[in-house]
């Protein structure tokens, strides 16, 4: 089996299980407050990590390349409350233009 299918089946199984955890197993019971507090903060922690690694990392190397210009454009779009599609589009367009001309 290819790596792609292993990841598809593995991540699919884990996600289906995680989503089903509350509705199927726990029902009305609640987790300890400390665990809920940590889980709630996973989203900002992991999303921030994804932004910086995908903007500045290639494998184990850190670098400033055309992606950084694109993400800077995306940041401007986000601050201006542009629709998500515009945020993504501006990042892609600026990165493509920098690669084309620089």
């Amino acid at each position: 089996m290819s790596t792609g299918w292993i990841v598809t089946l593995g991540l699919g199984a884990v996600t289906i299980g995680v989503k089903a955890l509350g509705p199927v197993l726990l029902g009305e019971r609640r987790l300890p407050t400390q665990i809920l507090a940590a889980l709630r903060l996973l989203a900002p922690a992991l999303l921030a990590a994804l932004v910086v690694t995908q903007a500045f990392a290639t494998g184990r190397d850190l670098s400033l390349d055309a992606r950084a210009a694109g993400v800077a454009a995306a940041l401007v779009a986000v601050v201006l409350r542009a629709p998500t599609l515009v945020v993504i589009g501006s990042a892609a367009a600026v990165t493509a233009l920098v690669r084309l001309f620089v």
Partner: protein
Amino acid sequence: VKATQGYRAGARAVSGLAVAIAAFGVSFGVLARSAGMSPWAAVAMSATTMAGSAQFAAVSVLAAGGGAIVAVVAGALLNARYAVMGLSAASALTGPVWVRLLLAQLVVDESWAVAQTGDGTLDRDRVIGAGLVLFGTHVTSTAVGAFGVGVLGDPTTLGLDAAFPAMFLALLWPHLGERQARRVAAAGAIVALAVTPLAPPGVAIVAAAGAAVVGSRWR
């Protein structure tokens, strides 16, 4: 009749996102192919995982040369928030176990958000209406991207690799209104950059999750 109205209300509430979801889906299909996945594996991942950020994270690990386990862990950690959302959804998703299992799959960021009733619980019919629209859009657009990759050309030339951090930035931004979340996000970013040169691709993202655990004790 009442249920139908709820389905429609949920579907309508996310319809404005459909174009963006479709763009993510097409991008994911393209990225999955460039990471060496087969088109059907890409479509199957969208159908079973149905969580854009986790899928992008997992496939980004593969694209960067990381292994399957690291890819699954990176994606699974991003989906840990669904355990919390599932808890708040539990009371609304009534029925036999297999019905709860299926309906729970429709609870993703957007359907969870638009089905809020205001008292911390969800509206079952709105979850279903919104979830089905998101599922259909996500899977269909993934297929378009995955099977049409030759038509679109090299995603790097189109700057699509920068679309991913841009998308994560757009998803991160709404969290930053809260002081504690801002500090956790900053810590996550610093940890990720610090760990990147030291560990296999994807491990940095997993390590950044520690910021959430530490941050939950900050006040």
